[in-house]
């Protein structure tokens, strides 16, 4: 009985192993965009997994108190109209400001004349679901909602690497 069970376990483990391999090829376990309901900075409720956008999406986690985040988003803002025209990309800036500084988000976004979609994540629900440790953290999502690239830092020039990744998607 014991021997039989052992064999069965080994057999099942193998079948499981192969099944998993097969799945990896089919990408059944992927990193899809989690569905979290957030408000945009004007108060409208949106579902992060159903934004209804056509092209690739960049999610950039930032905060009004994060200097490198603001540098990154200001740098991209200068290039954004070109990026949009060439690749159809949309940037969604997710603010993790909580109640202490949340009211300053709209002031900063409009004061800097950003053209992004801006979402508020004051209790960190989307940040947690996306596995963000620190800001800035930028994710690139393809049209199927699969996360294809992410980068946890900002140094001048990183936006060019991001743009290369976006172009790879629009060539597909």
């Amino acid at each position, binding site marked *: 009985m014991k021997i039989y069970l052992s064999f069965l376990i080994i057999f099942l483990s193998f079948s499981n192993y192969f099944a998993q391999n097969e799945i990896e090829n089919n990408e059944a376990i992927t990193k899809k965009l989690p569905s979290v309901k957030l408000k945009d900075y004007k108060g409208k409720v949106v579902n992060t997994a159903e934004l209804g956008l056509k092209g690739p999406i960049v999610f950039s986690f930032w905060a009004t108190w994060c200097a490198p985040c603001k540098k990154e988003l200001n740098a991209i803002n200068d290039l954004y109209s070109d990026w949009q025209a060439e690749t159809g990309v949309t940037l969604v800036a997710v603010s993790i400001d909580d109640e202490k500084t949340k*009211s300053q988000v709209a002031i900063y976004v409009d004061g800097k004349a950003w053209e992004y979609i801006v979402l508020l994540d004051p209790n960190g629900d989307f940040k947690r679901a996306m*596995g963000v440790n620190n800001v800035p953290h930028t994710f690139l999502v393809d049209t199927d909602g699969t996360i294809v690239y992410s980068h946890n830092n900002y140094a001048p020039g990183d936006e060019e690497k991001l743009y290369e990744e976006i172009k790879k998607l629009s060539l597909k």
Partner: protein
Amino acid sequence: MKYFFFTIFFSPVILFSQANITGNIESTFQFLNNDSIIGATQPDQKGLINSYMNVFYTQGKFKAGLRVESYLPRIQGYPNRFDGTGIGMRYVGYANDLVDVTLGTFYEQFGSGLALRAYEDRALGYDNLLDGMRLIVRPKRGVVLKGVYGYQRLSFQQGKLIYGEGIVRGVDGEINLNEAVKKLEDFPLTMVFGTSFVSKYQVDNDPDLILPKNVGAYGARAKFRYKNVTLDGEYIIKEQDPSNDNSKIYNYGHASVINLSYTKKGLGILLSGKSVDNMSYRSDRSKDLQDVLINYLPSLNKTHTYNLVSTLYPYATQLLGEVAFQGDILYTFKKGTKIGGKYGTSINFNVSTTYQPIKHTSGINPLDSSGVTYTSRPFDKSDSLYWRDINVNVTKKINKNLSFIFSYFNITINNDVAKISNDSKGIISSHVGVIETAYRINKTNSIRTELQGMFVEKENGLIKDKGNWATILVEYSISPSYFFSFMDQYNYGNPLESKRTHYPIITCGYIKDATRFTVSYGRQRAGLFCVGGVCRFVPANNGLTFSFTQSF
């Protein structure tokens, strides 16, 4: 045998459905030295390590999550509520368009958090999650109803969650009229209304007093938006809640916030007010500091990032009472104008003040049986200053490769009320100037510098607190993978010559996509540090710190 069933059970699950797994890992290791000059001591273990890993699993409408935490022992400066290895968070849930139910641990916020906010900040070592049940119902578009029930996380000892003594219950409802009522869909005025009721229950084992076992907190909020103008506010009342914080008085508490803003492309203006009285609201009335707070009352001011400004004189809300105001303006001079230049120039001006509220005592006998010791009204302030921050910064891009940020801060803090330093009494007023330069050498290489000076006002010709400070920071980065930085903070103006100390620290980092390694060596003062592109809270120490983060 267990494994046998496990395998059989999970095989079909893995085979036939679309699973999604996300999460992250963070691990910080410290090897610390003795440093008597800055008061840093080597722990007996020499090496300290904090780690945690989150795993979130979703499959269709089913969801589950888990966090394993490990403190062997906790890193220096981390609260003493973290010890051992174990499960710090776990839940299962189900969500469709109508309902979203969670059993186990969860984080939640009602309105602006004045009545209830369960949240985490792992860098700060804060976690007051609720463990119980949460149900969110969306009966129609624009309407959200929430109910929560649970015990609060107090600490994590020997790898096990320890809960606050009292249970927390709450309901919240919010309606967005423009989404819920079809006729109002295109109405130019956006209207959102909400209301919350929260209650805590804790046994009364006080030998002398009859304490309320059930304490409620309730109120309402509203948000209006018309074209470029937004007005929002919330008002919360707390019932009689004698506690250690308020010296067991039987007063009701109240809290209010109000924000008025005007924004258009290139301009943002914000005016905010906040009033708090007797609002410490905990699931255990005997606790203090940051333990088992049910509500969230942040201070009303800008969160600064330059290290001298953010870490030497920060202000925290006085839960027992304060009245605060803030104004913020950001204006961008357009490209191509005289001041705007080729790339546009931004100027930001921000002022925040906080005062002691007035407590009316006429006609009240604090010793009578009611236990009410004063009356107070929202926004009824005295002239006694707790905090004031006046700051301005100008961002100027000279050309494609060179840009500057000039900043000035004037920070005044009442050290008798908002205790920040043991070396001084009364009001401490300081002036801080910062020049930040960023230069891009070529496509991938860039250099950034910060020069900071802090000048503390003298009192009767005597140096106050620790006196003047200077900081220099040089950061070299190679996009997208490497950075090196050197920072020295120098307390050159300390009244004691022996304490005119340098705090040098060197940090190197390697980043590959969602993986990040950093190593730093040197002296660190406590505070929110932003190095190499990321901000996190770092406690005071001298030694080696290695950190690793990974998202997946």
